[in-house]
Structure formats: structure tokens, C-alpha cells
């Protein structure tokens, strides 16, 4: 039974498996390594995942959803046509699609996987990922954090001596920094830090705002199609700036055509503030690991946004050395996940490597502190597990009652770094009854156990009665029992994922539709004709003809797309 490693990213997802020669990325039905994390609903109620869906972001924005990873673990709803999905449902579609790709590639059934999650994912988000996997029919034994996965994929290359290195992961929407140490076959995470709202998209956003403001466009009141088109322009410009010295954006709305050229200098000025934000997590991670930048032996770049040239510059500036980016920054995490799968199985071909991870944030509870004037003040945060504690970890603290005649103690679980609970995130609460007594006489032991997957369990023990209460912190109680998952599975069952063998042609159609939207006048007519033509051929069901026409169609679309970019 094969097992796979999956990188479920905000913008793109990948799947890989372990071979004797090392980890290998499994291509999807279109032959690509990257599958965009976009889901769309087709006209005949089929689910489309990947590139096809991404095309439909522009043509059918009301039926398409993207960047839902950010909302995992929340109640956000995505209405697509007559269905409404949660972020977990959407992720499960992506996972299902990857699973199908792997099964087709390996010609065997796949039931188990290791999935990567951002190091900063909290408990609810991790649980949501596990649920999505269940919905996709995958059993996930381990969630691996992304920087660790990347480190692991590089780790094989750096096996020689003891190494301290930092992983700099700038993805589509998040920024993660991890400091790791590799010695004696042990990959140890020292500390992690990050910014959940900083990513490649923000850099695109800067260009977008600049364009919109300089041209006086009322962005908020544009149709979503226009908005998507503008975003695409900003992305292209960003790419251009990455490769050359200048980029251009063009946009047409009705009669008006707007245009703007941006050169390197301007871009740097625009992004100066963003770049400042990059430094904080780095400093924090280093501080927590008690290291100076010069103590590091290597810096690894992962995440698509690190392709931006000035990222390399910044990183060099901070650390005084050039970073490593030999492994494709998009693929490193998936490769690492595949390695982790093999490690778990203690695969013989792999030299034993033990991996340890840390807890990304402090976990504690709310208490009252005695004030100098004799009174008590509530709302203080008492940490039980400090951040960057290696996991798995289990720690216990003892607390007492505050008031006389108190008959129960309530433990509220918080996550965060502030000393006041109001600035931290509440994860849940648990009560335990205690015998009535004078204040401070009854005690309760609070044990926080943070397991290797990042799932928190809280156990309360009333000291005098030896009574115990346990709760596993769940943000959405009622959704993770097997019955509920089964129920949701039933609901989603009738939704089929678009069959793989037809996906190429479907992609061509979707692409054609998108180009139709994006172009004007004469080009539009031409594209329309091509589309009708191709559809007719598809309807004929003549395999030979379809293949021929598909090739021609693709060529024409390619040339049109090149044409459009000028």
C-alpha cells in the first residue's frame, strides 16, 4: 500500500511519494507538478479542481473558490451555485483530486498520507485539515509542519556536519520562519515564528493599489470579473519585475483603457513597508533560539514568493550570506512530506532520522493575581506550555479556588503571548466541581498535553476528590465525530469530481472561455468561433478527431495568449 506526502498550500498543492532514489513529485492529470488550490462547480454539478478551476475564477467567479486555506477552522461559507461549502469541504476536494492523481500514477490504491500544515496553524485549523482528509478518504497519521518538511527535504543534502539553519518560507499568503538544528541524525526545530498575513499576494496587492489609485479607478465598485482581471495584471507585472527591470499593467473598462508602467525602483519604494515586516518574525525566531544571524550555517528559501529577486537580497542583507534555493521552492515541502512518510515507516533505504517539532505558541489559562492592595485582579494569563517547547509535551500546573464556598473551578484555555487574556485567543473552557470550602483550600491540577500533531488535550483533576475531567479542545464541536463526517460524506458523495481523462479538454475549454472574457472585439469573435468548433468536435465523440483538434486548439490558444500579453 503506497503512502503519499501532500503539501496543501494556499495557492498551490502538490503530492509526492518516496522511492529508493528519493522523494518524487507525482504529476497531476495535466502533467503538472503544481495543482492550484482552486475549486469550481461545473454546469453539470461536477467539481473541478486545479488549473481548470483557476481559469474559471475569471469567467465564473460566483462558482469558484480559492485561498480557502486561510479560513480553515472557521465557519466561513462558500456558496457555489446551489451548494454551500465550508473550507474543509473545499480542501477535501483538492485532496481527493490529488489522491486520484497519485492512484493513477502509482496504479494502486492510496489510503494514507502525511499532510503538511503551516507551523502556525492552531488546533482548530489542524483539526479542520484532518477532517478534510477524512472527507477525501485519506487516513492521516501525521501532520507535519511546512518548514520542517522543507528542512527535511534539504536535510538529506546537508547530512554531513552539525548544521544550524533557518527556513524562510514566504508563501502566497503567509510568512513562516523556523530555526532548526541538524546533528547526529536528529532534525530538531528550535523555534518558529511568522506572520499570518504577509505573503506574495501582499506584494501583488501593493502593485494593484498603486495602479488603482494612480488611475483613479473605483476598485470596490467593479464587477468581480474586472477585479480578477486587474489582479491578474498585477501578478503579471510582479513577474515581469522579477525577471526584468520594469513591468506594465493594462486595464480596459468600457471605453476607457488605463495603463501604468512600474520600474524596479518604484517597486522597491512601494514594497518598503512590507519588507520591514519581514524582519520581525526572523528576529523573534532567532531570539527564541538564542542565536545571532551569524550563528547560522545556512538559510533556506521556500515558497513561491521567494522567487522575487529582492527577497534574496534582503535575506542576504540580514544574514550576511546568500541563501540556498536549489530545491524548487514550490516543491520542497511536498518532497519533505514524502520523506516524512518514509521515515515513519522506518523505510530501510533511508538513514534513520528523528524529527522533533515545537509548539508554535504559548498555551495557558486565565487566573487572578493578588494585588498589592490586597484585592484580586482577574484576566491574567498564566502560561502552562511556553511557545517553542518541543513536542510532544505534557505539563501540569496547580491552581486554587479564589472565593469561599466556590463549588467549581473553571479553567479557560488561552493561546497567545500577552499577559492579559483579553489579548489572547480563547480556545475553550472546562469546569470541574470541587467540594465547598474556604478560599484557597481546594486545588485543581491542570494538565495540558500537546501531542505530536499539535492537538491539545486538557485534563483537570480535583486534588481532594481525585475526580477528573478531560476535554479535547475543539473549536467546532460536533463536527469531528465519525458519524458527522460520515454524514457530510454522504451529502458530498453525489458530487463527482470531473473525470481525469477528460480534464485536458475541459481545461482547453475553460482557458478559451477565460481568454474570451479577457479580450475585446475581433479577438473575441475569433475565440468564440474556436470554442464552438471545439465543442462540436467533442460532441462527435470521435477520439481521433478530438485529439487532432485539441492540439490545434491549444496552439491557437497559446498564440492568442502571447498576443494578449503585449
Amino acid at each position, binding site marked *: 500500500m503506497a503512502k503519499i506526502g501532500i503539501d496543501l498550500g494556499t495557492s498551490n498543492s502538490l503530492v509526492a511519494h518516496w522511492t529508493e532514489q528519493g522523494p518524487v513529485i507525482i504529476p497531476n492529470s495535466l502533467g503538472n507538478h503544481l495543482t492550484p488550490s482552486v475549486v469550481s462547480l461545473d454546469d453539470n454539478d461536477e467539481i473541478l479542481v486545479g488549473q481548470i478551476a483557476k481559469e474559471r475564477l475569471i469567467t465564473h467567479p460566483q462558482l469558484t473558490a480559492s485561498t480557502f486555506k486561510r479560513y480553515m477552522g472557521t465557519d466561513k461559507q462558500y456558496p457555489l451555485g446551489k451548494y454551500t461549502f465550508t473550507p474543509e469541504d473545499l480542501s477535501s476536494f483538492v485532496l481527493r483530486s490529488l489522491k486520484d492523481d497519485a492512484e493513477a500514477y502509482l496504479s494502486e490504491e492510496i489510503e494514507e498520507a502525511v499532510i503538511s500544515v503551516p507551523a502556525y496553524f492552531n488546533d482548530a485549523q489542524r483539526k479542520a485539515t484532518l477532517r478534510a482528509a477524512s472527507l477525501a478518504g485519506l487516513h492521516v497519521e501525521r501532520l507535519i509542519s511546512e518548514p520542517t518538511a522543507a528542512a527535511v527535504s534539504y536535510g538529506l543534502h546537508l547530512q554531513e556536519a552539525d548544521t544550524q539553519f533557518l527556513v524562510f518560507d514566504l508563501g502566497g499568503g503567509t510568512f513562516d520562519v523556523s530555526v532548526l538544528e541538524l546533528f547526529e541524525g536528529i532534525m530538531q526545530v528550535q523555534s518558529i515564528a511568522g506572520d499570518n498575513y504577509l505573503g506574495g499576494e501582499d506584494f501583488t496587492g501593493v502593485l494593484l493599489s498603486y495602479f488603482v489609485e494612480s488611475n483613479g479607478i473605483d476598485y470596490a465598485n467593479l464587477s468581480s470579473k474586472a477585479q480578477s482581471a486587474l489582479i491578474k495584471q498585477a501578478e503579471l507585472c510582479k513577474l515581469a519585475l522579477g525577471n526584468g527591470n520594469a513591468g506594465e499593467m493594462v486595464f480596459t473598462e468600457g471605453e476607457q483603457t488605463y495603463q501604468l508602467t512600474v520600474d524596479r525602483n518604484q517597486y522597491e519604494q512601494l514594497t518598503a*513597508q512590507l519588507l*520591514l515586516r519581514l524582519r520581525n518574525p526572523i*528576529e523573534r525566531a532567532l531570539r527564541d533560539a538564542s542565536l545571532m544571524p551569524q550563528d547560522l550555517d545556512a538559510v533556506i528559501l521556500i515558497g513561491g514568493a521567494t522567487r522575487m529577486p529582492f527577497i534574496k537580497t534582503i535575506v542576504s542583507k540580514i544574514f550576511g550570506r546568500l541563501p540556498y534555493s536549489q530545491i524548487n521552492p514550490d516543491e520542497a515541502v511536498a518532497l519533505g512530506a514524502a520523506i516524512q512518510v518514509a521515515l515513519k515507516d522506518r523505510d530501510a533505504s533511508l538513514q534513520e532520522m528523528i524529527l522533533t517539532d515545537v509548539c508554535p505558541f504559548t498555551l495557558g489559562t486565565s487566573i487572578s493575581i493578588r494585588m498589592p492592595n490586597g484585592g484580586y485582579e482577574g484576566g491574567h494569563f498564566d502560561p502552562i506550555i511556553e511557545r517553542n517547547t518541543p513536542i510532544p509535551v505534557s505539563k501540569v500546573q496547580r491552581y486554587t479556588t479564589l472565593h469561599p464556598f466556590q463549588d467549581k473551578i473553571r479553567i479557560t484555555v488561552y493561546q497567545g503571548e500577552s*499577559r492579559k487574556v483579553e489579548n489572547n485567543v480563547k480556545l475553550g473552557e472546562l469546569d470541574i466541581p470541587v467540594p465547598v470550602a474556604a478560599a484557597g483550600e481546594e486545588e485543581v491540577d491542570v494538565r495540558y498535553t500537546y501531542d505530536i500533531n499539535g492537538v491539545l488535550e486538557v485534563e483537570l483533576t480535583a486534588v481532594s476528590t481525585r475526580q477528573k475531567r478531560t476535554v479535547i479542545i475543539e473549536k467546532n464541536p460536533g463536527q469531528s465525530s465519525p458519524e458527522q463526517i460520515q454524514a457530510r460524506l454522504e451529502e458530498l458523495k453525489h458530487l463527482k469530481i470531473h473525470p481525469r481523462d477528460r480534464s485536458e479538454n475541459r481545461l482547453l475549454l475553460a482557458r478559451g472561455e477565460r481568454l474570451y472574457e479577457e479580450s475585446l472585439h475581433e479577438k473575441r469573435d475569433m475565440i468564440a468561433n474556436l470554442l464552438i468548433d471545439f465543442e462540436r468536435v467533442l460532441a462527435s465523440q470521435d477520439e481521433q478527431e478530438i485529439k487532432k483538434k485539441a492540439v490545434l486548439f491549444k496552439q491557437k490558444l497559446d498564440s492568442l495568449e502571447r498576443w494578449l500579453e503585449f
Partner: protein
Amino acid sequence: MTIWERLSISRTADIKAIKRAYAKQLKVYHPEDDPRGYQALREAFDAALSFAKREASREEVVEYEELRDDDESQSDIEPQTLLVPRINLSQLNHEHIQPEDNEQLMPPPRIPLHANQSIWQHVFETEGSSSSETDYNTVPEFVEAIIALYEHFPSRISKDKWLELLNSSVMWNIDFKLQIRNQLMFILEDRKLFLPTEIWRLLESSLDLENTIQESIDFDDDHNPNSIWSYYLRQLKYPGLRYEFLLQTDGLDYDQFLQLRDQGYAALSQNDLKQAETYLKRAFALFADDPDLLRLLGECCMRTAQYEAALAYFDQLIRLLPEEIDGHLYKARIWYYMGQTSQTAEQCQYILSKWPKNSDAVILLSHCRMSLGNPGEAEELLNKAVQLSDRNQSTLEEQPNLVKANRANRRNWKLLFNKNILLHMIIMLVTSALIIGCINYYWNISIQNTPFIVTSLNDLELINEQEYTALSVTNLQDININHYAGGVNSFDSGFYENSAYAFRHFDEYGNPTYRVYLGEFNGQHIIVFADPATDVLSIQSGTAIKGYVHAVSSRLESAVTHMLRWKPSNPEGTPEAKLELYNKSIAIGFDTDYESNSVPVPEINQKYIEISDPKTKSPVNKFNIATLGLIIAIWIRSLYYLVFEYRKIRGTL
């Protein structure tokens, strides 16, 4: 178990040895298989490591002291941190203890900044902006530059200048950056800085002060909303006031003005109106043309209902910034509160001419129209407002309809299953059926009981025995015959007897069932039967007699004929005649003696009519009416409830 025992090595400061020992033990206490064992091992390892590190740094200090004395040329590289005497890192940076302190006083041997600069410039491709003029390499220089930038007001509010400053080389060194941050916090504690919001945000992104503040002990004891930390956090959270307008005037004590304005702003958000007014007015005295201040003053007056004063402030605001909507909206509201509807309307219309999409103005305008007595226009305007606020019109229309449709569908189902409705429906059906039945019944009966008026002899012939008939009979005369229900010998329905005779032999005959009369109808004579109790003769001539028509039996005919023919032998009127009458019996036998010369016996119609009430009893009696009334009442009540429930359900859609 001591940490050394857990690691299975003897006490040592050799980091490598510790690591190797840990690695070996880790294979035994694998984190996946033995979480508790792993936790214990890891703690031992961490403790051993920090012990070893402390030992190592102590040696390093000794080493470096020697080095330092030798090399004088290092001195210019030393950051002259002691220039600013108040640095006391351990207070603010409680996470870092001794090693840091030591390292502060000596530059870490591995990064002499200046020496490496060439490497960095080699790494950059185009670095136009950071010219050496505004680039700072040491902390004190940098801090001075910050202060200088701040003191110069126009620079203070220039984002570009700040950005440039924050990109100085010295900021790239993590260590120095930390120092700079601490310095800044000191400065902040000392005096309140006034900066535009975007500059605050800039500072925050580069120095990460917010987290530090929240994590530090100082913040806990700080409950004063006026404290520096609350102030700082407020600057980040709430939209700030603008600074650029202050550039227009010279000679203004910026900080004093800003201080007053800010205090006024804070007081206003806490609704401390007296304080707010004081502060704001004092700021106003310093500089009267700051739009934000004017707005705050206007708002303050609004809250104290000083509408005239507020108007003045807003007018000024509009004069300064005619393109901003705030002043206009406020004015519209003021006129509205003051009840000046025409002014309000004018103002709203002006607003709409410039900002056609402003829904507030439309709604206020519709309020005006309403109070001016123009409900039609008001409605129109409100309709417009709906369209305005609703960009995706289709979705709004769809949604409630969808929702309505869904609800309607579900509700329609629910209608059927609603207990009340079912119950009442059943009641209604039953009672309706009853009522209809009753009515039908009554109707039938009344039809039956309506006598069929016979006018001609032909009809009389044809009439059915069961049908209730009416005849107008004239000349009713009593012919002294009674009908008696069947005697001992009779095998048919009875016999006839002279009433007088029967009366005499009452005990034999008993009560008559009918009395027989003769009347005239359409020229013919017709026999009439009547109930003995009925006073037939009082029936006026011409009045219709109601009853049932039957065929005349031969017996009857002969009896009647006989009676008619018979005449007493004695002359009429004499008592003897009466006596004879009394003695005459039809039944017993015909006494042909007394058959006189034929009195002309009139032709008697072959049908006789029996006066009676309609056979079927009129159902109109108290009991029936009462029941019917009750049923109707129930029916009405059910109907009422039904309609009521239905409307209730419909009404809640």
C-alpha cells in the same frame, strides 16, 4: 534522576558530547513511541546545553578582554552606547540575561560592520536610495536622527523620510535594532509623541513594539488609559487625525496644539464632554483652521445640543474642505434635529448632487418629505435608497424571494400539518356538512309543506295524495257526520256516523277522528274533513284550506249522500227534528223511510280534502333552532380561527 543520568554521560561542558549523548538516547525514547520519556530526555538535554553554554561564554569573556586591550583600532567600531546613559536593558528585555549584557560592551568579533560593507554592496544590484548621507551606522546616531526628524515638523509627517531612515544600515543588525527599539520606548515613556497614523504603523512594522508591550510586565500594572502604552496602542488601532493642515501656519507650537487636540479627542470618545470642550476650545484658540479639530468641536456641540455653535464650526469646515462630505452631512443632521425640514431637504439635495450614492442623505430627505406631508415622494426616495445601497440588486431580490419561496414552500407544508389548522378544518367541514344537511332538510320540508294551490278541478283530479294542498273552499257547512276510527267489526279505516247520534252514544263511539263538512269549490261540492277541535266554520270564506286530498270512498259518499238527503220528518227547527237527528244513525242502517223526496244531492267531487297540518312536522321549534344556532356558531368560530391562523402564518413570512 539527574540530567546527566538521563543522558547517560558524566557532567561536562562539551556541547558536542552532550549532543551525541542526546542523539543516542533519542533512539530509545523516540518522541512518537514514548512521549513522556522523550519529554524528560529533552528537558535534560536542554538543561545540559544551557549549562554548557554558560560555561562557554564565561570563557569567552575572559578571552575577549585580552584581545581588546591589544587592539586599539577596534575602538571606533564600538557602538558608543554609553553616550546615552539610561540604557538598562535588563529592565526591558527580561528575556535576555547576562550573556547579552556582556556582549553589548564589546562588538562580537565575527561582525565588524564596516569591514563587511563592501560585501553587502557587492550583493546589491541597484541601491540608489540609501545614500551615505542619511545612512546611519550606529545606534546613537540613529536615535539622534529620529529625534531630529521628529523635531522638524514637516519632516515629521513625511512618510518617505521615515521610510528612508528606517532602512538605514544600522537597522539591519538585529542587535542594534533591539537597542533602537528600547531607546524609542524610553523616549516614549518620557514624552508623548504625536505622529500621523501611517508613521506609527511604519514604526510598528519595523520595530514590533506592540508585541513587546503586551508581553512586558510594565503593561500589566498599567490601567491608566492615558498612559503611554495605551496611547500607543490607540494610535495603531483607531484612525488618527491629520497633520498636514498644520503646515499652513507658522509660529504654531505644534506639540501644544497636538496635545490639546489629542486630549480633546480622547475625552470625546469617552463622552467626557466638559473636558473635551475645554481642550478642544483651547486648541481652537491656538489654531482655528484645522479641519479635524473643527469636526471634533462640531461633534462636541452636537452632543450637548448646541446646534447653532455646531453649525458655525461645520460651515468653517466646509469652507476649508468643500470636497469632504462630513460637514455637509452634519449640517443636514443639524437642520433635521432642529426641525427645519425645508433646510434639511435643501441640504440633502445638495449632498446628493455631489455624492449621488449617499444613502444617508436619501433617507433623511425621505424623512423630510414625509413630515412635509408628501408620502408618495418619500416612498419614491426610499425605493431609490434600496437600489443605491444594493449593488448586486439581483442577489437582494433573489435572496428574499428565494428565502420567501423556501419559507413559503415549507410554510405551505406546515400549513397542512399545523395542529390548529387541521383541527379547525375538520370542525369546519363537519359543521358545514351538518348545516348544509339541515338546510337541505328544512328546505325540503318547507317545500313539502308549502301547499300546492289547487285552482281547477282538473288539478284536483291529478293531485297526489301525499302532496300538501291548498284549496279555497266556500260555503262550508256542517253536515253532521263524524268519522270514527275503526270499530270492532270494521276491517277498513273507519266508519261514518251522524255526529249527533254518536254524541248521544258517546260511550259507544268515543271521540271522533274527523268531522265532515261540505264546501263548494269551483262549482262542485267537496267534502272536507277536519279535526273536531278545529273550528272550521270560522274559517272565512275564500281562505284556503290546507290539507291532503284523498279519494272519496263509496262509503263516505253514501254516508254523505244519505245525510244530505235525509231530512227529518218533523219540520226543521223543532226539537223533534233535533231529536230525530240525534237518533239517526248512518252506520246502523239506512232507514229508507226517511228518505224523502230527493233533495237534490249536489254533485260531490270524488276527492275530499282533509284539513291538516303538513304531515311532516315543521322542524322549526326551539330545540332545532337552538341546535342549528349552535352549529352555526361553531362554524363561524372555526372559520375565524382558520383565517386567523392562516393570516398569522402568512404574516410572519
